[in-house]
């Protein structure tokens, strides 16, 4: 009797189970609520490469046996760029040694970056007293392939170094020297043998490859063919990472999708967007840009909404830390892309740490700290009513 009822019952339970495995599993979060999505339109081969890079970026932790250090700041790319989003004070870096465009004069003393963490048995590097320095918080790394695919020509269209239009904003590209190993993109425009940098808070870095090699070397003490010197000992080492792996990581960065907005039909968000235009935040945070032709099909000729011009702007004395890179002044910073801003707290541990060093703990505070070329816009913001400011922030959070 038991058997007769039990057996069919068991089979029914198993049937339901096998048929509904997927339903019993957590759903994917909506695309616009995460940053670490992949571009659509990739070929199968490209998806495989993206996946390989993903594993190296997020899952590979360096340790003593596979090359970490001896001096380092963190043990993996993903531990500073969690979920490909912005970082936390724990993963903030300190760079030091350069006050003006005459270059870094503290290289002998361990510049340009502090490696304050060390393997057991080593002495950590200390910030030399008197050295100019800045703290830098990790930016989100999504949509960077698209930013890399914008033509120099396009960026120059928005530059206005002498403020000819008298709007108080005089953005200029960061013409910087590039290391010999960097491949110059087709259509690049040079000025006195220098090229336009677009990555890093000072826009000192030309390409994602250069950024990646620098990160391996300076953040984790991993030497490569291109960056063979160990930052702790200053001596040349055998490569601790292969060219293939570096290329896969770069490809991964290039093919991360652009952050997607949320609540775009919310009336308050629409109102906020109008105010954002009205007080000329768009003078620097350009809402729309177009990419040029790229070797990666999915990046070619796309319209994107990054809310940046990738140019340097003098942000006034409050944001001037006295430290700089390349040919930027110490008060100049690259306009931070605002796409993905609303997801910042999801990678920063539930809080937000905004601006280059994470000093602003809210969007409101970040805007109030704008000065220099952004003074007019900031004053415009301060003149808004409470309701209007709320709408503007709602809009920024929808990005």
């Amino acid at each position, binding site marked *: 009797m*038991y*058997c007769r009822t*039990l057996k069919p019952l068991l*089979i029914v*339970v*198993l*049937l339901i*189970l*096998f*048929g509904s*495995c*997927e339903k*019993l*599993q*957590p*759903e*994917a*979060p909506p695309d616009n609520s995460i940053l670490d999505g992949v571009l659509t339109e990739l070929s199968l081969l490209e998806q495989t490469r993206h996946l390989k890079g993903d594993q190296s970026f997020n899952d*590979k*932790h360096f*340790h*003593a*046996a*596979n090359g970490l250090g001896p001096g*380092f700041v*963190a*043990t*993996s790319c993903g*531990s500073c760029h*969690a*979920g490909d989003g912005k970082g*936390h*004070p*724990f993963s*903030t870096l300190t760079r030091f040694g350069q006050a003006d465009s005459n270059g870094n004069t503290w290289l002998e003393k361990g510049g340009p970056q502090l490696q*304050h*963490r*060390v*393997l*057991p*048995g*080593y*002495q*950590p590097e200390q910030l030399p007293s008197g050295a100019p320095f800045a703290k830098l918080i990790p930016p989100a790394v999504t949509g960077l392939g698209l930013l890399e695919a914008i033509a120099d020509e396009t960026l120059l269209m928005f530059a206005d170094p002498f403020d000819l239009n008298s709007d108080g904003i005089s953005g200029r590209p960061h013409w910087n020297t590039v290391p010999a190993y960097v491949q110059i993109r087709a259509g690049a425009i040079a000025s006195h043998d220098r090229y336009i940098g677009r990555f890093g808070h000072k826009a000192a870095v030309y390409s994602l490859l250069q950024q990646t090699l620098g990160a391996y070397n300076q953040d984790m003490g991993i030497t490569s063919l291109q960056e063979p010197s160990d930052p702790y000992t200053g001596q040349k080492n055998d490569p601790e990472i292969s060219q293939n792996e570096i290329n896969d990581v770069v490809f991964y960065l290039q093919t991360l999708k652009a952050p997607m907005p949320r609540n775009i039909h919310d009336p308050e968000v629409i109102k906020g967007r109008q105010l954002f235009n009205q007080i000329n935040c768009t003078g620097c945070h350009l809402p729309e840009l177009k990419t040029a032709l790229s070797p990666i099909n999915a990046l070619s000729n796309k319209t994107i909404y990054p809310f940046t011009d990738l140019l340097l702007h003098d942000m006034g004395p409050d944001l001037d830390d006295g430290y700089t890179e390349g040919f930027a002044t110490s008060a100049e910073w690259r306009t931070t892309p605002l796409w993905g801003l609303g997801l910042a707290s*999801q*990678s*920063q*541990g*539930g809080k937000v740490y905004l601006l280059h060093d994470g000093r602003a703990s809210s969007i409101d505070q970040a805007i109030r700290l704008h000065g220099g070329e952004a003074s007019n816009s900031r004053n415009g913001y301060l003149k808004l009513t409470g309701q209007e400011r709320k709408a503007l922030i709602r809009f920024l959070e929808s990005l």
Partner: protein
Amino acid sequence: MIFRHIIAPILFFTSGTQHLVAQVDSSLFRTATPDTDSNVLNMDAIYTRPYLVSGNYPVAIGGYLESNWQHSGTDGVSEGHQFQFRRLTLFFSSTITRRIRFLTEIEFEDGARHIAIEFAALDFELHPLLNLRGGMILNPIGAFNQNHDGPKWEFTDRPLASTELLPATWSNPGFGLYGKWYQGSLMFGYETYITSGLNDSVISNSQGRTFLPAVKNKPDRFSGNGNGEILWNGKLACKHNKLGEIGVSAFTGIYNTWQAGGLQTDFKRRCSAWAIDYNNSIKSWGTRIVGEWVCIRTEIPESYSQQFGAKQHGGFVDIIQPLIKRPFLHWEQAEINLAVRLEYLDYNRDTFSETAERIHDETSSIVAGLGFRPSTQTILRLNYRYRLQKDLLGNPPEQSATISLGISSYF
């Protein structure tokens, strides 16, 4: 389609059970049933297993296997169907002369990719209170490490605290003493061993966190004692017929290589663990409760990264409720059980020096299980597990779920 995905696995699993049972019934061998009296502590687990003995042949052999089908997914990304052959373990025991026993357990994991001598020791019984054990020993930390046989558990996965905080199953060369003592309805047991054990991988591993299980991956760990330091192990257990068994255990030792070739290369750094374990059966209901909690302290070099936790803890509780216990088909003691496991562990209990906020790096999981035991030695188990994993910063957790159907049986 339906056949391939649904009926075939069922047939596969059911045919497997019958075959195994048939083997035990073979006329050549008889099964030496494990000590079933209640005078058994968790520390006796290696002997409380079914063995096959043949005539007067002095060697008894036994073993178990574990295999399962699994379907899991994390945040909407499915890993699809996975058929896993987790492990095949063989044990051999023999009484060499009176009062000298030998037992070994050899494990083949993931096909034959990992072959390990899990246990291989000689036991000299001098007195019930004083036994000498030497060889490859299962470190007596917590309860699971010594009592890890798949068929004893209602869950396909081992407890997280035992595999992610502690390196279960973990054995090391060494020797020591153990013994038992009875007093009315109370029973006491103790174990003390000195073994080799820890190494630099505690804080130098591919996980980027303090991770004791990484010590198992060091290939040369059996050829000598890596850092020349002793790992001290001890356990006390007390069992009451009604109140159950409680165990308190610990180990401590220097984990890093601090000298080489007569030169000091680093300072000595200690790693210690404490565990408390409990198990009981509530006679009237037949409910079984098993749990374990472990705390670990590791001295982390001051300027190493805070992502390596100096303090860790975690544990699990299993509650198993027999639903039906009666003859079924040809099995006389068939049993259907409902089981739940709750588990939690925190890899890093420190606070960030930058923000004075707590470091997360923690995981929790709940597993529901339905087990069918044709006999106590074989289990066909169906598990559903839901797990949350938070990163260092405490960002929204990764959610994963796993359904598994597995078989595990002594043979």
